[in-house]
């Protein structure tokens, strides 16, 4: 038997129920960032892969933030998913590679993640393609 990626091996991880304190600190960072977004229109971004999570902690954060009204899927160099959590203005962004492995995971505190907008270079390219006979 051979596997192309770890994800194919079905492993169930049991997570002991204790807290390293990461959750409270990340939530207070998020709260502060939301205030800044409202007051100064300043966006903020947290790299979730740079956090020293204890087992299960990241999942607990995602469960707490929940899912809100909108989600967007991007297909470029593999999939990416953007969704707003049940707290408007707090987005969870996950980037996958072509093998469906996570290559980036972020919390964005913003009205809309920048990458969702059509990009200037791509729009220019569209026009050029349409203008070709």
């Amino acid at each position, binding site marked *: 038997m051979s596997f192309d990626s770890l994800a194919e091996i079905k492993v169930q991880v049991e997570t002991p129920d204790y807290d390293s304190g990461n959750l409270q600190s990340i939530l207070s960072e998020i709260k502060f960032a939301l205030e800044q977004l409202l007051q100064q229109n300043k966006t903020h*971004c947290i790299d979730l892969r740079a956090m020293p999570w*204890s087992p299960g902690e990241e999942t607990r954060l995602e469960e707490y933030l929940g899912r809100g009204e909108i989600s967007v899927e991007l297909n470029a160099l593999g999939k990416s998913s953007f969704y707003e959590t049940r707290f408007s203005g707090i987005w969870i962004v996950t980037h996958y590679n072509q093998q469906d*492995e996570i290559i980036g995971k972020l919390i964005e505190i913003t009205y809309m993640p920048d990458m969702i907008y059509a990009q200037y270079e791509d729009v220019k390219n569209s026009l050029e393609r349409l203008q070709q006979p």
Partner: protein
Amino acid sequence: MNKKTLFELLQQQGITRRGFLKYCTALTSLMALPPAMIPTVAKALESARRPSVIWLSFQECTGCTESLTRSHSPTVEGLIFDYISLDYHHTLQAASGAAAEHAREQAMKDNYGKYLVVVDGSIPLADPGYSTIAGISNLDMLNETVAGAAAVIAVGTCSAYGGLPHAAPNPTGAVSVSSLIKDKPVINVPGCPPIPTVITGVLAHYLTFGSIPELDELGRPKVFYGQSIHDRCYRRPFYDKGLFAETFDDEGAKKGWCLYRLGCKGPMTYNACATLKWNQQTSWPVESGHGCLGCSEPNFWDAGSFYQALSIPDGDYARAAGYAAAAGVAVGAAAGFVHQKTKSTAVAQHSEISVDDFSLNKD
């Protein structure tokens, strides 16, 4: 060196600006830079060119290459190595013998002064016969290859400090790269093996900024080796409360208490395991219930039993504990934020970070 920039190569493959930005996001995270740096990384990559890389394997077990070829994020094949020209790696390349050596010499000639040399394994000085490639001693090959290099990356504890071959009584007279190479920048990426994403992260830094990252006093990139395992360990709140596992299967072990008394070397070990983790961020040694062995520190093989508790809390331990007490917050929270704080200080110090800020070691 390839004439096309990385951005042009991506465009040629029909990758959109969004795709490019996604690549930059992944790369920024891989380099352990804060997300605020993504636009800077994008700007730098627009003009980055493929560097040529020559990989030399000396007295080693191939564990470092194994680690690297299993790195996933971004995949070696897909995202990093497409844009690095790996011109010589005698374990991975198809050619061997004279043909392989010819490839090395050609790459050196074509990219003189600009290529990167990656070394895994230590260099035996007692008798060159202990390790040769195509009849050339490791020492000769190192000196000859490094002569035209821009920088040398010593991957793994063996090439960074001598490693296992250097362990007492060091029969082969094994030494590290940095003890031999004095006239070129040497970046140490220790670990037995190093975390694969750290290896690719250092290569990515060079690819992106054309410079080497900021190093600590042991020549290690600070972004990855700036904090101790203990500083970032999620079991740290237990350590601070004095809750220790005494055996590997007692109540404390089951509850996930601190492994200090079982010999954890986390307090004196600088590495990124606690955040980057292993095997696609699945887990890491302490999370699996075993103490840190200290594999990214010099002479860890000779530092006594892996299961002997560290006797004296070292300076770092005292400093870290003091910091937490002064801040008056739960240590777990503080420990969780050390990394981000370092990053945001870096950001705060530059109102706008430019590519030039990363070109510290260009000459």
